[in-house]
């Protein structure tokens, strides 16, 4: 393999594709989707509880309302006190949606705790915020009723926070768990996007016959490696843009300092990321070489694109139990190694030997797929008129062409 040739192929592929509509569109639209999705889920989780609600209260005990009012000080729930004779007017206002609903407190139900909340349609009511404040107010009310002093009450109601701590003394943060899944997702998206562009690029070169001219100057391996590096850098550039946008967007919603990872964590993540990228790129380029056109017979090849995604379907289970036997086994199957390991690295502290051995497995996978890719690539490229079946690919790998 001559590196100057690889370099020339790489330069051409990089600069040609960085200007291509597909690259520009995916680079720009995916962050937009990320912003949209992030924004929607942020407002979905915070917006509902922030929504103000107007609740009328009929207090037949004559003494509970002040407790409620005190506890509502910082809540989005607003209450107003009404006489029991006004019940019909309140019902009308609820129907007219001027009020979200009304509550009735009687001497009996403040003891039993079974409070009725009258609303227009019980199905569409979110009582989370309301039941929290009523619960607290009732607790204070009952405690005073049985004669506890303010001091005793504050002692009894002191909040409880359970703080999980690893035996290693490491701090736990949700962000640190989200990050690896995020990196795995980014890997998959980047691979899908630039892998597809690579695959269809090869297919196009094959379809418009340029490929034979290229092979009269460079070897199939040089062409393949040049393309992989070219698309690899394109992918990294794209990911860089996405990360910058993603982090800037994330910074609006939460403290991104929590994601901050030590170099010791970052290096394996990068290594698995790049290794995975190269392996999948080789696979996709080979697939492109076996296709005749983008339709019809190529459907089966198109499915190969989905293989790297498989660990993602189990991402929840992998992050929850990163040391389960099946997860370990998955880590040693090269095609699944990158996504699985990216998730495990963040989810737990892996012993160095496991990192090292899975990385060796990945490197073997990379070497195997480049070798296999180059063989299928060089043989499939000149088969202009048809799609090559998986059976024939098997033959190609054994036979010297």
């Amino acid at each position, binding site marked *: 393999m001559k590196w100057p*040739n690889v370099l020339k*192929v790489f330069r051409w592929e990089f600069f040609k594709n960085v200007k291509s509509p597909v690259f520009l569109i995916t680079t720009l639209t995916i962050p937009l989707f990320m912003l949209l999705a992030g924004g929607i889920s942020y407002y979905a989780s915070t917006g509902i509880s922030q929504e103000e609600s107007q609740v009328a209260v009929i207090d037949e005990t004559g003494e509970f309302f002040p407790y409620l009012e005190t506890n509502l000080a910082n809540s989005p729930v607003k209450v107003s006190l009404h006489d029991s004779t006004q019940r019909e007017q309140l019902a009308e206002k609820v129907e007219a949606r001027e009020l979200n609903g009304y509550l009735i407190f009687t001497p009996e139900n403040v003891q039993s705790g079974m409070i009725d909340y009258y609303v227009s349609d019980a199905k569409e009511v979110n009582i989370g915020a309301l039941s929290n404040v009523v619960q607290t107010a009732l607790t204070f009310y009952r405690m005073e009723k049985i004669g506890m002093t303010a001091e005793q009450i504050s002692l009894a109601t002191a909040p409880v926070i359970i703080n999980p701590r690893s035996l290693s003394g490491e701090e736990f943060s949700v962000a640190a768990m989200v990050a690896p899944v995020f990196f795995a997702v980014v890997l998959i998206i980047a691979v899908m996007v630039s892998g597809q562009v690579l695959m269809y690029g090869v297919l196009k070169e094959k379809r418009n016959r*340029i*490929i*034979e*001219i290229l092979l009269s*100057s460079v070897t199939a391996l040089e062409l393949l490696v040049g393309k992989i590096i070219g698309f690899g850098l394109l992918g990294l550039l794209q990911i860089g843009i996405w990360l910058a946008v993603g982090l800037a967007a994330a910074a609006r919603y939460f403290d991104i300092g929590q994601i901050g990872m030590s170099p010791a964590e970052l290096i394996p993540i990068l290594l698995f990321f790049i290794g995975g990228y190269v392996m999948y790129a080789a696979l996709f380029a080979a697939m492109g070489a076996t296709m005749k056109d983008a339709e019809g017979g190529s459907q089966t090849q198109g499915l190969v694109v989905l293989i790297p995604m498989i660990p993602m379907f189990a991402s929840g289970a992998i992050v929850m139990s990163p040391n389960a036997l099946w997860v370990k086994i998955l880590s040693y199957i090269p095609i699944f190694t990158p996504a699985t390991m990216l998730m495990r690295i963040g989810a737990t502290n892996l012993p160095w030997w496991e990192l090292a051995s899975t990385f060796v497995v990945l490197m073997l996978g990379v070497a195997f797929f480049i070798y296999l890719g180059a063989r299928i690539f060089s043989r499939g490229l000149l088969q202009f008129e048809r799609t090559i079946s998986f059976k024939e690919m098997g033959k190609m790998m054994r036979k010297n062409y």
Partner: protein
Amino acid sequence: METILDVKGLTKSFGNKKAVDNISLSVTRGEVMGLLGPNGAGKTTAIRMIMGIMAPDAGEISFNFGDGPQPLDKSRIGYLPEERGLYDDARVIENLLYLAGLKGMPAAEARREALQWLERLDLGAYANQKLEKLSKGMQQKVQFIASILHRPVLVLFDEPFSGLDPVNQDVIKEIIRELRDGGTTVLLSAHQMNMVEELCDSIFLINHGREVLSGKLQAIKESYKEDIVELHYDPAEDSSFLKMIPGLRILREEPGLAVMRYSGSAEINALLQEFVSRLTVKAITVEKPPLHEIFVETVRERGEEIEVA
């Protein structure tokens, strides 16, 4: 004479079919050799193996660019494949610079020469156009430029004339002659033999992957036993005696004109003298039959069939 390309026992099968069957040929420096045969005869497969795009099942290919036998050096060979194509979403000049770059030509020099070639082939105005804007014929010319831009020592043209109109065919022929005059060795394939006959110094005829005939074109023709004789004479005279001459077959006859094929044992000169003694000859030409006929005849004599794929 120095051999630039030497092929020995080249063989390649696809499944049960032998596409190229034990072919040996050698190309002399500075000549134009025609690899000729019908479609499907194995020309493209042979050229692809010489170019190192396909690996042969058996056989040896060696090059000698003047400094001893050496393995394939793709940067010194130009190649125009039968299957044409370039990046149609890139500009004409970008296509040319990339391909010349892959052959190791410095960019500035490649740009200068590419523009000169484009001018020469009436494509100067299209240098900065995307290739897809050009007609098929223009794209073929661009591809032709791509195959010779880096000044190769040896060029392989696979069916260089297919798809070109007669005017452009002549332009390409002229350039091929210039290349030869400039010392470039050319190996070209074609299925329309008559078209390249005048261009070739030597030929290699191939059918079903096997050699039919090879050697210097002149020598092959001269050693071929038949002649085509075209005789113009006074229409008033009686030429019926022509039918009686052994070995002479009349192909076409009009008053005052007879086109005949002669394969008799007597010298051609004796035949001509007989014409002159019995007719008022106005004009007479004696030619060897066209290469295509020699090919068909040789194949038939061997009891083989000509396959047209």
